[in-house]
């Protein structure tokens, strides 16, 4: 590092100290405390022990909740890939001007409050909503379909809500691909499907995996969408955390539930990013 101006004691890295202090006091300390609180037995946080962990993991219902939460994330990842990947492919073929417009359309929902996006789906999926009135108008159904408070409705909504998180990394990686590769594949006689699965998909793997990570992490923890569209009968881990902390006021149990959420979501994320690094290595080497 070069000499830092006139003050001899000054080093550039010291500029990061204020942020580091803020993080220690406002981020690390609360999280460590949360881990500590989980090792208390009672709501008043007076008796240390493992009772909260034993209670949470002694209840088979909680295993189902964790499983459902991870499954919800997996389903949302599948639907966002299914329709997001084709959109990213189409993006590549557009003119620069249309690419700008499409990127704007993709990013715009990201800046729109999640509450607004969730509310939009109530209007679309409700009893007198768009889907039901169109289907009944066409005579396809005679009774309104129940779409709100079902997992199907929730997955459809989350697909839109999380879509930008899938598309941004995907488009970012795909637009750096050498277009000659596709032309070469076509010139050598490969069909478009074959080019897609043997050239484009392997090369876009880092972006695809980054998108999957973001969508998975975001949909498994999407408290508002889960409670408003899923209703009270579909129970996921964020709802349990909220109930235990702000309704029942049993903070040690809430701490156990939220640490379980972190560990289960982040271990899937870590496994995926490990797979991503491997596939990246395969492509580059």
């Amino acid at each position, binding site marked *: 590092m070069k000499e830092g101006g006139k003050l001899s004691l000054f080093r550039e890295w010291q*500029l990061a100290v204020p942020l580091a202090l803020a993080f220690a006091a*406002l981020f690390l300390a*609360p999280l460590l405390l*949360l881990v500590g609180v989980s090792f208390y037995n009672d709501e008043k946080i007076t008796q240390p022990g493992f009772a909260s962990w034993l209670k949470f993991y002694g209840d088979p219902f909680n295993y189902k909740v964790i499983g459902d939460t991870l499954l919800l994330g997996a389903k949302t990842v599948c639907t966002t890939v299914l329709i997001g990947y*084709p959109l990213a492919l189409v993006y590549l073929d557009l003119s620069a001007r249309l690419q700008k417009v499409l*990127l704007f359309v993709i990013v715009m929902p990201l800046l729109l*409050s999640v509450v607004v996006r969730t*509310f939009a789906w109530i209007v679309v999926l409700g009893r007198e909503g768009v889907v039901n009135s169109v289907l009944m108008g066409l005579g396809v159904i005679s009774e309104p379909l129940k779409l709100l408070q079902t997992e199907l409705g929730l997955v459809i909504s989350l697909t839109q809500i999380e879509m930008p998180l899938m598309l941004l990394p995907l488009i970012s990686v795909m637009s750096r691909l050498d277009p000659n590769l596709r032309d070469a594949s076509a010139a050598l006689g490969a069909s478009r499907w074959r080019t897609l699965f043997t050239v484009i998909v392997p090369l876009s793997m880092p972006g695809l995996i980054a998108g999957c990570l973001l969508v998975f992490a975001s949909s498994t923890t999407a408290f508002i969408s889960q409670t408003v569209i899923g209703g009270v009968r579909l129970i996921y881990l964020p709802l349990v*955390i909220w109930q235990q902390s702000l309704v029942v006021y049993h*903070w040690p149990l809430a701490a156990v539930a939220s640490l379980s959420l972190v560990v289960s979501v982040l271990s899937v994320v870590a496994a995926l990013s490990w797979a991503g690094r491997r596939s990246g290595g395969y492509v580059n080497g």
Partner: protein
Amino acid sequence: MGRRRSFGDVSYGLLIGGLALLAVTIIVAPVVIVLMTSFTEGQALKFPPKGFSLGWYEQLFDPVKSRQIHKTAGNSLWIAAFSTLFGVVLATLAALGLGRSRSRLARVADSLFMSPLVLPGITFGLAALVYFSLLGFRPSIELMIAGHLIVTMPFILRTTTASLSQLDPALLDSSQSLGASWLYTLRRVTLPLIAPGIAAGAFLAFMASIDNVPVSLFLSNARTDTLPIRMWGMMESTLDVRVAAVSGVLIAAAFVLMLIMEWTVGLTRRMRD
């Protein structure tokens, strides 16, 4: 191309094109539908909306009937403004300090500072609630600002670090070899060049704070409620059509702000790269 279009190529075009069209529809349609519904004359959220009126917007802007909503919107703006302001100062300093460092510690610090983006927000919200309560603090706007600062700062750090890494080091070296002090170089060379990056990050952080639910959910009380929390309450209890009007205002605001940011700092390009 001279090749005859095979069945495979046609099926590719149809399937990929169809799915992409479905994706665009799913992204855009709900937003358009909410906008249309907010202009309904009726008392319920029906589709197609009955008639056209600005009635729900009039109710929304009525200072007496919608006092609560106005107060929560004020809280949201206040919290977003201050958490972004502190975030810009802290993140810019940290990016200047760590941005060009190759040391292991700097990389660890950088991933620590980015970690609120991957940690489930609800976990940090609960942790902050437990921490502040056990320290004896009562819910306040200041605590909300502190909580929002942690979860929105990474956006600023990311864009600022990215624009610092694109900065030509020769510029800084020549400024210094011409005798400019570190501070003068910072003020006249570095900051003007990274300003668009800082601005893009500040914008994203501000929007993330306005939108934040998990942290506000745990740190707010009736007095410090933010707009999203209030809207959540309105959606959970009676489905108040004013939610559609609030949504309409937020959609319009996001649209206009995004156009401005696109023209000034090229926002979408920064988000894509």
